[in-house]
């Protein structure tokens, strides 16, 4: 890495100007927990690392109306430990606390993981499920991207090379809506093999709306609408939740790899989805 160059801008404008200047030769360095291993393994090569750690005023984690705003320097550990996140979008606190290990959570940033778009990354799943606003700045200005359509394949996103994610805004679920995130990892700190985000909206004891998104199985977060539709109009009994989870497993198209066959991962997805649905329904009842 002898030819690597480092630059630490202090403003978003300077950052965007550098990203525009160096294009594909530059990478944004925030926590570096995903970026640095790829450089070390030489699966990616960059001339310039634009280190955003000195940007001023980008560590905010605050409520703004019905949204939770997370600035681009907020680390996973901050999200996991935040009382505000626990009270407003508890599934996001669960998710952040489940990423990697303590050391990784102390460095990695939530916005960095959203922008990196690893297929097995955790934050992309809730970004897509909840249709979070991804705020992207460039030299030309700022635009707000829809979380639901942000991912376009393995580490491919709607971001242009000269754009910086300055914040992500998660919608705070209404009363009567429960959101949960569950996953299965082969060992403590490794990447998950199957993840599911579940959203259940209750009207009394009837499901009035539902959404399910898987991660890690395919090349990007994948909405599972048919499985979610199983729930709508039903009372969320064990039998109904089982049926929705089974539909999710049947409809999933997991990539076969060293972690298991497609059939194994579909079974896994069913189990993880069932757990997520159970949690989401419990949360929806609590919030009513």
């Amino acid at each position, binding site marked *: 890495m002898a030819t690597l160059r480092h630059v630490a801008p*202090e403003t978003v404008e300077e950052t965007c100007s550098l990203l525009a200047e160096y294009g594909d030769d530059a990478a944004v360095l925030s926590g570096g927990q995903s970026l640095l291993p790829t450089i070390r393994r030489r699966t990616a090569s960059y001339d310039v690392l634009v280190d955003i750690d000195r940007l001023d005023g980008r560590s905010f984690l605050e409520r703004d109306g019905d949204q939770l705003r997370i600035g681009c320097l907020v680390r996973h550990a901050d999200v996991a430990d935040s009382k505000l996140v626990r009270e407003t979008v508890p599934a996001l606190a669960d998710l952040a606390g489940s990423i990697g290990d303590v050391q990784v959570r102390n460095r990695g940033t939530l916005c960095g993981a959203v922008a990196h778009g690893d297929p097995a990354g955790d934050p992309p799943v809730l970004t897509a499920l909840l249709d979070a606003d991804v705020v992207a700045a460039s030299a030309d200005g700022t635009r707000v991207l829809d979380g639901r359509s942000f991912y376009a394949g393995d580490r491919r996103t709607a971001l242009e090379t000269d754009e910086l994610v300055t914040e992500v805004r998660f919608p705070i679920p209404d009363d009567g809506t429960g959101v949960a995130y569950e996953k299965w990892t082969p060992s403590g700190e490794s990447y998950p093999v199957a993840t599911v985000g579940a959203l259940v909206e209750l009207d009394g004891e009837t499901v009035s709306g539902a959404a399910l998104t898987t991660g890690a199985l395919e090349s990007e977060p994948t909405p599972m609408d048919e499985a979610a539709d199983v729930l709508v109009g039903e009372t969320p009994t064990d039998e109904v939740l089982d049926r929705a989870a089974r539909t999710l497993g049947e409809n999933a198209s997991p990539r076969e790899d060293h972690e298991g066959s497609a059939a194994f991962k579909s079974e896994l997805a069913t189990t993880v989805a069932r757990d997520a649905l159970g949690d989401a329904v419990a949360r929806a009842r609590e919030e009513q």
Partner: protein
Amino acid sequence: MTDATEDASGDVTDETEDASEPPRPSETVEVSVTLNGEAVTGTVDAGTFLSSFLRRERYLTGTHRACESTTCGACTVLVDGDPVKSCNVLAAQVDGSDLTTVEGLADDDGSLHPVQRAFWDTHGLQCGFCTPGMVLSSVALLEETDDPSVDEIRTHLSGNVCRCTGYTKIIESVKRAAEATDD
């Protein structure tokens, strides 16, 4: 921010500094840190990992290198009190930080930190290679929690791999350190 440095050693030499111009990328970076209580400044290649900076520039070889892939945790050090894996952090990223390595734990007279003492007394190690990382992660845990449960200890140490002990003695050591620091 006051601790930010304007890097004048970039590759564009004929450019005058201007407030509207971003700083220039540089192949070398000046790093100023507080390392085990001592102010230290060094100039390193931009791609230098913190573990290399500590071992090669500062000769602090208690920070062990093994997997070099953010897995094993042997290279764990504390950055502003938080455990991080120094094989996956650039030296440039910790400029302005307060660093603690295993060498910074014992007192000047050589008397061990309570966590080191507990690992010694409980025999919370066999080959000892993972021990600096285990000890530093445990120090950080006990800064947060006086009396961690076994589950909390296991979760907190999940980023530190030991291939000898089976972890039982390590967890006992952390429990014993917690009791000792309670007194």
